[in-house]
């Protein structure tokens, strides 16, 4: 596997995971950018633990994920059902604080960051292949659980909150509980992605966890379509990949390109490329051609509208 | 304006919200100097009809004419400028703003002779004169209705659409409001009124229309409607 291909595949996976972690809380209309702070915290945590205490990879991965989940949970007790803009500013503030700390405290390596994160196994190419397998295993696992969630009663409750919070409450849905659950999950994915990212790049610096990173995740989510998990899966490889084949003079403008794409999609097709109705149609085809004939009532309000 | 030409002419107007039909082929005329009352239960389409006339909803088909000009699809603010004004149902006033501000909002488009108009309005509603600086949210229910009516006068309208003026008010206050409506009508304002208090409304009105689930099922002079057995049974509880 060439280095370029490795980075392309691995970073695509990271963007899928991170965009999903933004997708989850947006199911109830919250833009939970704290997940990028969780990514940074867990990346630095895993780097330090591996380098200074020689923790094995599975242990740091578990610890990094838990660290994300814990911080996410702690914050969600305060902003679990807060309005979107409050969740946004909490996320931004966390990112800013995290950046300030890692830039100014010596053990985090300042603006240069931390290098020489060890390989998981000793062979270079073996390490790459193993990492790709691990990363995509977690993409699959996360996708599987998000899909399960979207089809569950809880997922339908989240859709109802997105459309109309008051109606949801009158149905007996507790927005705070669902918000806390989604934010915690989102932060856990952020933490996990951070550890994976540190081991993919084998070096991390504060420059990796910027507002531009949020911008890219947001573009992937909204261009792909925020109402299903599939939009991210489609948009991440394309959107993160295409600047790589642009001429170098244009590559520097990738954030402007992302911004323009985001603005255009919001103006022309606010639900994104893949919509919920589209996914349902595909499912119906599968339903009627295959053997699984368990007719489902239209599962959510958004599609019914 | 000729006496025999309606000031407001509604022809075959239908309005739908998504798949729900709110108004179905409505025909209605209001002549200059008339009080017309719309009779109907909750959800019959009275408010939809008034808001459609004002321009808040665009009819799917049909035609609305006001003072000889076609007005369907024209925005609310232009219709207000043309001399239509709605006194909305419910709260009807801006509760965080002062009484005076609420009145001046009525004169947003028609700013000529504002001081004179204020004087006129205070002549109709002396209580508002005393409370000019008070925040509208602290007024009583009856006072708010008066303020909403007064705000309509500030725009110097030719026709006032009054949506359920007696809703939730004490009987004595309702009497006052109806007296004021009669007086306004005598001084030349045409009024399209929607009411559930049918007895009182028909007593002051010239003609009426009965709305049921978005259709006009009956129309006629106020007297005929008052004596109509079906209307009596359905709306007067006789």
């Amino acid at each position: 596997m060439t280095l370029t291909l490795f980075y392309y595949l691995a970073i695509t996976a990271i963007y899928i995971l991170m965009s999903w972690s933004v997708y989850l809380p947006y199911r109830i209309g919250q833009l939970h950018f704290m997940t990028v702070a969780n990514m940074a915290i867990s990346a630095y945590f895993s780097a330090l633990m591996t380098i200074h205490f020689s923790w094995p990879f599975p242990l740091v991965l578990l610890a990094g994920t838990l660290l994300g989940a814990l911080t996410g949970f702690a914050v969600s007790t305060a902003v679990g059902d807060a309005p979107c803009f409050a969740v946004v500013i909490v996320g931004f503030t966390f990112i800013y604080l995290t950046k300030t700390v890692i830039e100014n405290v010596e053990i985090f390596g300042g603006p240069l960051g931390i290098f020489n994160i060890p390989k998981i196994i000793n062979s270079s190419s073996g390490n790459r292949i193993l990492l790709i397998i691990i990363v995509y295993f977690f993409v699959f696992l996360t996708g599987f659980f998000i899909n399960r969630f979207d089809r569950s009663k809880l997922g339908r409750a989240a859709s109802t909150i997105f459309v109309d919070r008051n109606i949801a409450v009158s149905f007996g849905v507790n927005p705070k509980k669902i918000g806390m659950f989604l934010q915690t999950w989102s932060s856990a994915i952020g933490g996990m992605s951070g550890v994976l990212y540190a081991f993919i790049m084998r070096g991390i610096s504060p420059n990796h966890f910027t507002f531009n990173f949020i911008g890219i995740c947001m573009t992937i989510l909204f261009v792909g379509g925020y109402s299903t998990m599939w939009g991210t899966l489609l948009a991440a490889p394309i959107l993160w990949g295409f600047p790589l084949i642009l001429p170098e003079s244009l590559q520097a403008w990738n954030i402007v390109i992302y911004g323009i794409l985001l603005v255009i999609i919001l103006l022309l097709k606010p639900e994104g490329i893949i919509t919920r109705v589209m996914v349902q149609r595909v499912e119906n085809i599968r339903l009627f051609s295959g053997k699984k004939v368990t007719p489902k009532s239209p599962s959510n309000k958004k599609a019914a509208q | 304006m000729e006496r025999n030409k309606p000031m407001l002419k509604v022809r075959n107007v239908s309005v739908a919200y998504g798949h729900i039909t709110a108004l179905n082929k409505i025909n209605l005329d209001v002549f200059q100097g008339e009080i017309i009352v719309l009779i109907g239960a909750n959800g019959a389409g009275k408010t939809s009809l008034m808001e459609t006339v004002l321009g808040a909803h665009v009819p799917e088909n049909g035609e609305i004419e006001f003072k000889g000009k076609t007005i369907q699809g024209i925005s609310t603010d232009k219709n207000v400028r043309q001399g239509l004004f709605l006194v909305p149902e419910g709260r009807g006033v801006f509760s965080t703003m002062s009484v005076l501000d609420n009145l001046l909002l009525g004169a947003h488009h028609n700013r000529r002779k504002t001081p004179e108009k204020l004087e006129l309005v205070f002549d109709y509603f002396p209580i508002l004169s005393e409370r000019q600086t008070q925040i509208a949210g602290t007024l009583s229910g009856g006072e708010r209705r008066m303020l909403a009516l007064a705000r309509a006068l500030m725009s110097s309208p030719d026709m006032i659409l009054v949506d359920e003026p007696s809703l939730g008010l004490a009987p004595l206050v309702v009497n006052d409001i109806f007296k004021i409506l009669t007086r306004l009508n005598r001084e030349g304002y045409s009024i399209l009124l929607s009411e559930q208090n049918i007895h009182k409304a028909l007593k002051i009105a010239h003609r009426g229309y009965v709305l049921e689930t978005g259709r006009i099922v009956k129309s006629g002079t106020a007297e005929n409607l008052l004596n109509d057995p079906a209307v009596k049974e359905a709306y007067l509880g006789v």
Partner: protein
Amino acid sequence: MNVLTAQFFNGLAIGSIYVLLATGFNLLLLVARIIHFAFPVAVVFSMYISWILITLTGNVLAGIAGGIVSAVLINMLTAPMFQHIMNKRESVDINTTMVLSMGLGMIITDILSHTFNQGFPIAFPDTLTGNDKGALISSGLISISRGQILTLAVGVVFVVILFQLLYKSRIGRAFRAIAEDPNEAKLVGIPLLKTGLKSYALTGLLGGVTAVLMSVLLGSASAGLGDQLGHKVLAVSIIAGLGNLTGGLIVGLLLGILEALIQGYFAGSWSNAISFAVMLIVILAKPRGIFGLKLRFQEI
């Protein structure tokens, strides 16, 4: 004690900037019904336009005029985008307007970090800042610059004019009517889009003046300044309660003073972090603000 006094004045000046920006942000929220997160980013862009004009022509007045015109233009050019989104939905979707605003912010910030001055921070000449003439008032350790006095004075004047406009004029009455209830405002004949457009123009003007004041007060700007101000202004507005203009006045000034005091005692990068931490704690404790929301959004 001297440090305290000096920093207090400094804080008032910085606070005036926050107040102006938060007021513009809140007006857009109340009247145009959008969360224009990138409003301060557009203001910083106007600082750059101002700088370019001063550098090219050497004329300070051209720079000032250019900065103001640019802020108004950006607001008026982006207004149709926001209004398009609002028209598309049955009710105003505040989240989408915020995402759109963030997208615009991304574009502007990245353009700033590539083009002007090769992406390096810009510095305004002394002819604008008046720094070469020294402090206006100085006694002992206390020194108050021309920029600080100017910012404070213009800030106060503008806030007074703005409140007069809101509470005494015809357009202000229409603004407040829409702020209270857009649907009722529509029924009494207030044209929502046209009035909304006027609020874009007014906040553009406000943003332009703020851009000039910031150029004088700070004497420099960088591409990242817009994002940072955007966060602070959103935080100020949330802490004050979104749409709460008076609350924004108080919290904006308080933040300015808090920052200046912290700066008096801590090193650069930490002082910003501390004020962010304080804001974070307040927001976590009171996500709906301390003075109460002035909006009745169903969807937030």
